């Protein structure tokens, strides 16, 4: 009974295009989409740049994009030298515009457990737990300091320039929680593009309205971009087969993103990116008279970056401030019953030096102060804070243009917590035109959250971080316009932090379970432009995830053994069609692998059609769950059946 009245800090208390392709390919793409004139201009710029910063360009020739774009996450292009990432464009994100959960569900290998559309949601990447996926905003880890996990449906969805999905360990660069993988929400700023803007409006089923506007201006020295959106959904969908009405399911949120960059010298920029996000989310109830509660969150993220890029030396100095506040309203119509305030001050320096064209050394130092404060009945009583420092070194060796290695090491200094020495090793070898091999081996961690440490009662200050030792091997085959990637992986996690009953009337976290996860991630992609009028793109991914609690020898709950997702885009002149299909295999919801309580396999398909008129006006229609499938990702919380949306976009 005790577990019920004061539930665990649930609240207080988780297709595509591969990038990292050769630069030639990028240029080709631009030709394809920008026409001959654009190509000439880009080529000219490229040549100028090649001559100015020749060395670096040559070193990074494998991926070096034309340097007219400033990217906040400066590690990302280096990461892409060794790892295959899935990159989603704003257009891809727009296909699943309800929330981040849907984007990841249909366009990534991640399993997303969602308590009804738009409500509480958590990820499982490569069969790991919600705390073992890192959400990274412009290079900054934004997992909740209270929960240690990303609160997916309370992460802004609109206004990014790229979303990158990276499988596998990444703690050396992206910090705590990058075990199963990481989700990167990135902004960039272009130069010399003049003024452009767009406005998008969408009306969808269940009283859903979304308006998004974006404007950008840039010249050769200065770039500015602002975007914002407001999304509201009554979200009162019904699933008669399950006797389900999504009562009290309303949510709304608004986002404001502002980014600016200024070239203070030929090779120096000062850039600033901020995000303001406000969200309200009601928690669905099962019966008319159930207890209505809601959740509100306010997020501020601000990042200042000073970047120097010389031929041999580059440096990025960053200062950031992030604030995550939330309030839980145990009684819907009254003032909040609990909540939290989290403020983080971050200072980070990333120094990169080419000893010679083959050897590159990279040193990253970071210092953070995390402050937390509980509100109302929160178990975080008063204020808590901790200082977190880290030093990381990476050595990269470019043996030949087809063979390269990277070794990384990192030590974190988390106040009062003993952190393990982390390491990573990656090698990439392009054997021939059709086969390349990539091998990764790393040790990663997730350090205890504020709730794990300081929750009263139960907080355990003797916790050690969860650690993982993991490896994956990626085989990439290219035949014609097809690309197939097969990535078997193995992860062993020790010291998993689990909240257990103490027998004293409350729960407490302990380093307990050992978990072994292994499986296969695979992706098949096909991209072809037949002629001026026709182009097609297909990305299909299949994952097999076995995740075993070594004590019980059972599969972890909410880790489907099989997941398949695919996205097809087809363009014919001014018409675009896309279709998404997602198959989710048998998913256990209880720790004894009970088939009775399991979620049975399902297939869901979405599709959309859009037409562009007079270049700048686009009208589109989407049909989600065409198959009218009754399905759920969290037991007893069905997701919507067939639903529709229409949208209009104006570019100017």
């Amino acid at each position, binding site marked *: 009974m*005790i577990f019920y009245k004061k539930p665990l800090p649930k609240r207080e208390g988780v297709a595509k295009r591969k990038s990292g392709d050769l630069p030639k390919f990028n240029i080709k793409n631009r030709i394809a989409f920008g026409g001959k004139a654009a190509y000439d201009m880009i080529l000219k710029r490229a040549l100028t740049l090649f001559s100015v910063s020749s060395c670096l360009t040559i070193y990074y020739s494998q991926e070096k994009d034309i340097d007219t774009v400033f990217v906040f996450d400066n590690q990302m292009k280096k990461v892409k030298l060794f790892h295959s990432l899935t990159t989603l464009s704003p257009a891809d994100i727009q296909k699943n515009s309800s929330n981040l959960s849907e984007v990841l569900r249909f366009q990534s290998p991640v399993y997303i457990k969602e308590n009804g559309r738009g409500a509480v949601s958590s990820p499982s990447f490569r069969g790991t737990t919600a705390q073992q996926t890192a959400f990274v905003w412009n290079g900054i880890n934004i997992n909740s300091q209270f929960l240690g996990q990303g609160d997916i449906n309370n992460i802004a969805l609109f206004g990014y320039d790229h979303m990158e999905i990276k499988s596998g360990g990444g703690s050396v660069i992206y910090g705590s929680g990058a075990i199963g993988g990481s989700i990167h929400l990135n902004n960039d700023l272009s130069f010399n593009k003049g003024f452009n803007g767009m406005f998008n409006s969408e009306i969808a089923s269940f009283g859903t309205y979304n308006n998004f506007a974006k404007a950008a201006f840039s010249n050769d020295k200065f770039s500015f971009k602002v975007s914002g959106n407001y999304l509201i959904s009554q979200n009162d969908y019904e699933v008669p087969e399950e006797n389900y009405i999504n009562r009290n399911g309303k949510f709304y949120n608004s986002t404001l993103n502002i980014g600016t960059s200024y070239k203070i010298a030929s090779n120096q920029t000062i850039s600033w990116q901020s995000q303001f996000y406000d969200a309200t989310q009601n928690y669905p109830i099962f019966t008319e008279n159930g207890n209505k509660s809601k959740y509100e969150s306010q997020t501020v993220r601000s990042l200042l970056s000073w970047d120097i890029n010389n031929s041999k030396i580059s440096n990025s100095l960053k200062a950031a401030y992030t604030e995550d506040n939330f309030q839980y309203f145990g009684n819907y119509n009254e003032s909040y019953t609990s909540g939290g305030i989290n403020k983080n001050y971050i200072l980070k320096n990333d120094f990169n030096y080419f000893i010679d064209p083959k050897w590159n050394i990279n040193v990253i130092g970071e210092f953070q102060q995390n402050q937390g404060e509980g509100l109302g009945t929160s178990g975080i009583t008063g204020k808590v804070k901790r200082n977190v420092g880290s030093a990381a070194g990476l050595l990269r060796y470019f043996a030949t243009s087809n063979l390269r290695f990277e070794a990384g090491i990192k030590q974190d200094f988390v106040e009062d917590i003993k952190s393990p020495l982390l390491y990573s090793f990656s090698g990439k070898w392009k054997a021939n035109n059709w086969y390349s091999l990539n091998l990764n081996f790393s040790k990663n961690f997730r350090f205890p959250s504020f709730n794990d440490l300081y929750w009263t009662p139960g907080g355990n200050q003797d916790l050690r971080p969860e650690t993982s030792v993991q490896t994956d091997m990626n085989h990439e085959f290219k035949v014609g316009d097809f690309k197939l990637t097969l990535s078997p992986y193995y992860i062993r996690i020790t010291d998993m932090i689990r909240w257990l009953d103490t027998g004293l009337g409350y729960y407490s976290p302990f380093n307990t379970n050992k978990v072994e996860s292994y499986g296969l991630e695979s992706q098949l992609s096909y991209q072809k432009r037949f002629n001026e009028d026709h182009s097609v793109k297909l990305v299909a991914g299949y994952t097999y995830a076995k995740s075993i609690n070594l004590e019980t020898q059972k599969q972890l709950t909410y880790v489907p053994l099989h997941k398949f997702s695919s996205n097809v885009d087809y363009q014919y002149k001014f018409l675009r069609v896309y279709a998404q299909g997602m198959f989710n295999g048998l998913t256990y919801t209880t720790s004894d692998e009970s088939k009775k309580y399991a979620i049975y396999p399902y297939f869901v398909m979405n599709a959309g059609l859009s037409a562009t008129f007079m270049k700048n006006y686009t009208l589109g229609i989407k049909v989600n769950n065409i198959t009218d499938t009754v399905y759920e990702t969290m037991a007893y919380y069905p997701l919507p059946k067939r639903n529709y949306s229409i949208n209009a976009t104006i570019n100017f």
Partner: protein
Amino acid sequence: MKLNRLLQFIFGFVLLFSISCTSEYEETIPEITYQNGLLITNEGNFGSPNADVTFITKDLSLMQNDIYKANNNKENLGDVLQTMVLNGDKAYLLLNNSNKIQIVDRYSFKKAGEITAQLNNPRYMAIANGNLYVSNDKYGGAKFVNVYKLSDNSFVKKIDFASTSTVERVVEAGGNIFVQNASYGFGNTITKINTTTNAIEGAPTPMPNGDITKTITYNSNVYVIAQGTADSYIYQINPAGSIVKTTTLTGIANGTNLQIDGGRFYFTSSNKVYSMDMNATAAPTNPIITAVDGGANFTLYGFSVIDGRIFTSDVKGFTQPSEITVYTTGGTVISKFTAGMGATSVYKN
């Protein structure tokens, strides 16, 4: 690729998967009545509507899970089945997080009405003087006991308690209602409600030692078990509301789960089960059962003693269905079976 070829491809795709996704778990249930057997309440997971009731025959040979769902068009019973009361031909199922009391025919388990008026996080129920008394513990708010008329399920009255008080278990003894002002091992008083005036009568009765963990009724008397860190206590309270007898359970900390059967007390402490004669003065030195420790509050989450048999429920951390173990009063295992999620109490039907 032509557009229609693409569509063909897509539909082919859909067909392929829709064929492979039609399997569904089914339990086929023959028509039976639930007379002369035992009902086990499974409270379910907080935040999930998976509470239900298990039926098992007296000889433990036949069992059926989810009998509410099975008899009511697959409808979910609700969220957290906190307690059940049997009266006449009806069963009253109190659903804490659904703010609902579902009334069913106790022998067919078909729906026979419901109470929702004025409920706010209801906890426990008792019947007296033709009325149903329901304690309510609003999240971070008011504490009160509601009175409903059994004849038509209508709301009669709300009896407010001090905001500093607690209302938890409600029992009837000698025509009066007694409310346990203690929950989660905190609180040490019992309040009497006069069922004629439906008002609180007198000051709450404090227990001299320990915090109350459970309150039951037996032979028109109230029995309370209170826990301490070294010793625990069983208090007998008469229908007038006075403590008439105290049994000190020397050396037994955290006593809870009091049951009375065949003139004997049964209670638990952590994963141990004790038994003693009601008239004995010395506490038992050895447990009659030491259950496998699956977490102090999980192993003996449910504990009932009925007609010389002990039923314990290990809720397995609420991550999988509960395991019920049936023992003789001497502590010998008779049977083991799996009920639903979070099994609590066993009732004779």
